[in-house]
């Protein structure tokens, strides 16, 4: 069965619950969310006003779930959702929003606009109005197992390299391990150092861990494109592997939306609580720090700042941990203006980076991050999301800025005491 308007409308109807209804009932059109969104502040385009991005869902709520809207619908007065609307909204919803959720923090009425946009995407995708590139990435994630098309042999090759470089053995499919590490395709392809760093830290900390050869991919294109069924399928693979290996904790790697997918959306997608815990790698590392398992040596003297990946800090709740960890190896840590839960998005999350059509706007809105960086002029930027990292590198290059990007886990590993 192919995508259709009917399916899209039905999907939107499914999305409406008491939160959606109270959010739409509360909007007063004050426009403050626009100032919270880098896609507006850097482009000046009013269509990028966050609440405007929810229009298809709002129309369904209004016409199906309100008294006046239903009466209006009978007389053809309530605005309808049709293909033309969805086509017009496709770029608004996918290319000009990273689901960063900054608008949700600013709205004086407390509307979780990012949640509404996420829900809007469900209808857009079901109606066949998702970007081609995102559909492609999702197809690869479902059929190959990775949005970037990374297959097991590629991972094995990287693991071999790491094992060769370090002389350590990377534990694969170890039943009963305490931790099961997930990886993002980007880490496998672009930042294999992450595997090495993690292996070192876990080794020093003396904990048992493993990587599943059946479910190593952490990313979830399903939640980016907005198809809960696919997102659930992808989560289920991890759940199956974790249950098979009987691990206590699944670790989400340095990837924003992967954490959202497995930690917060996961159990709700598959419809039952997990039998294991899910933690972000930074949470695990901070636990090690608290338990005294991390012995650090040497301090970075360069001016370091931390870029909060939206899905990990603002939407994920991991805010203090990276700061605790950085302070272990740095005595020159500076915060950007608007950091932590109010940090500005790099501009490439929520599927934007997988969507070539959005390349131009993604680099344009990087201006926001540039302004933030210009305010403190750091020597290096630490982040905890490969996607942020790649885009930050892109952006810095575009704006002729020469600031190196560091992975928090990797930098920490470099400072491990022998």
């Amino acid at each position, binding site marked *: 069965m*192919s995508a259709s308007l009917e399916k899209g409308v039905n999907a939107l109807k*499914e999305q*409406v*619950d008491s939160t959606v209804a109270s959010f739409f009932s509360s909007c007063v059109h004050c426009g403050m969310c626009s100032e919270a969104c880098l896609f507006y502040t850097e482009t000046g385009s009013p269509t990028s006003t966050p609440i405007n991005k929810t229009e298809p869902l709002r129309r369904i709520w209004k016409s199906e*779930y309100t008294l006046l809207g239903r009466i209006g619908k009978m007389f053809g007065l309530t605005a309808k959702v049709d293909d033309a609307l969805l086509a017009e909204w496709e770029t608004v919803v996918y290319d000009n929003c990273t689901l960063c959720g900054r608008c949700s923090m600013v709205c004086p009425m407390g509307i979780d606009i990012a949640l509404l946009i996420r829900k809007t995407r469900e209808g857009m995708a079901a109606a066949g109005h*998702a970007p081609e590139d995102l559909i492609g990435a999702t*197809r690869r994630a*479902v059929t190959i197992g990775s949005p970037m098309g990374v297959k097991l042999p590629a991972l094995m090759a990287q693991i071999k390299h790491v094992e060769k470089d370090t002389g350590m053995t990377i534990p694969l499919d170890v039943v009963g391990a305490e931790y099961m590490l997930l990886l993002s395709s980007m880490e496998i392809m672009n930042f294999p150092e992450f595997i090495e760093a993690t292996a070192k830290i876990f080794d020093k900390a003396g904990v048992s861990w493993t990587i599943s050869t059946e479910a190593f991919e952490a990313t979830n294109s399903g939640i980016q494109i907005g198809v809960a069924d*696919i997102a659930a399928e992808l989560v289920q693979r991890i759940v199956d592997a974790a249950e098979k290996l009987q691990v206590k904790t699944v670790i989400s790697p340095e990837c924003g939306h992967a954490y959202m997918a497995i930690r917060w959306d996961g159990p709700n997608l598959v419809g039952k609580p997990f039998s294991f815990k899910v933690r972000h790698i930074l949470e695990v590392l901070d636990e090690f720090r608290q338990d005294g398992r991390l012995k650090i040596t040497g301090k970075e003297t360069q001016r370091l700042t931390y870029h909060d990946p939206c899905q990990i800090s603002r939407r994920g709740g991991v805010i203090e941990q990276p700061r605790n960890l950085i302070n272990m190896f740095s005595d020159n840590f500076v915060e950007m203006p608007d950091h932590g839960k109010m940090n500005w998005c790099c501009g490439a999350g929520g599927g934007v980076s997988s969507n070539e059509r959005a390349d131009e706007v993604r680099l344009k809105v990087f201006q926001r991050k540039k302004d933030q960086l210009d305010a403190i002029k750091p020597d290096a930027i630490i982040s905890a999301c490969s996607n942020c990292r790649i885009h930050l590198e892109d952006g810095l290059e575009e704006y002729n800025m020469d600031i190196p990007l560091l992975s928090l886990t990797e930098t920490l590993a470099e400072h491990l005491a022998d």
Partner: protein
Amino acid sequence: MTNKKDKSLLDKTGLEKTDVNRTLGEMLRSQGVSRRSFLKYCAATASMMAMSPAMIPKIAHALESARRPSVIWLSFQECTGCTESLTRAHTATIESLIFDAISLDYHHTLQAAAGHAAEEAREAAMKENFGKYLLVVDGSIPMDNPGYSTIAGISNYDMLMETAKGAAAIIAVGTCATYGGLPHANPNPTGAVSVGDLIKDKPIINVPGCPPIPVVITGVLTHFLTFGTIPELDHIGRPKVFYGQSIHDRCYRRPFYDKGLFAETFDDEGAKKGWCLYKLGCKGPTTYNACATTKWNDGTGWPIEAGHPCLGCSEPDFWDGGGFYKSISMPTENITQTAIYTAAAAAAAGVVLGTMNKSKKNSAVAAHNKTSIDDLEK
């Protein structure tokens, strides 16, 4: 007391004929009234008509040459309170001059004559002064069943229409005659209407009040007598000189309203201190009358000065304002009960609509087709 005060009126109504062609000035002189006394009379008249003292010479001149008009007074559905009020105005030398100056040819409460003789007096006055007499009406006119109020077998309606024909002008005295008053109050069992509701082709001066302030009645009579014209009227036919400002605007307790100092009950500290009576239901803010300056009982006081809120008696439908002790910002109906019933009904309706919402959502969920990767393209 009443007898004494009514004396000169009664004198006038004993069908005693005076020469209507003499001017007031001539009449006064013939009675030996000095020019100085006349000036005093003019000053008092100016004050009574709420006119500027600068008008005194004009008034003197006008009164000099004024002629005695014939006055016919009809009382319909009323309580005689207006006549009582008028006789209170007729207390002493100065004001009595005004009544000396008119020929009250028919007033069934005050005149000595009764029955056929009385009606003959009315008919005679109408005939003699056709087109020139002044018609004063108090009381409302029942339109439902004429039997509710008749005089000498003539229905109020018939008598009014007949007498109005030859009137130069009509003065409707009291809220009943001007706006229907108490008889008109909901549910208006007699179908009471005002003079203005029935007569459209004569100048009507409305002098509302329940009763009107005595000097306002005489003031209007005097104006007609002095200038032979009707005073400037507001949009509901009231002379602006007396009804131009609201009680609230002229009230000496207004500063307390502005400061937010209110008597909450009739015996609290606020009441003792003379604070604003708004909360006790004062209708001053929506009532136009001269009480605050003219006052009652020979200027000794007025309701608010006595510590009682204004009832708004000079306004139409003042009986139906939700109660004399209900503040004008309060709803007139029992809203609390309405609100409770509404809330209960709405809660039920809300549950129905909410359940419909929920089931609509559930059927959308049920209609969900699992979306696979192949379903994302059209």
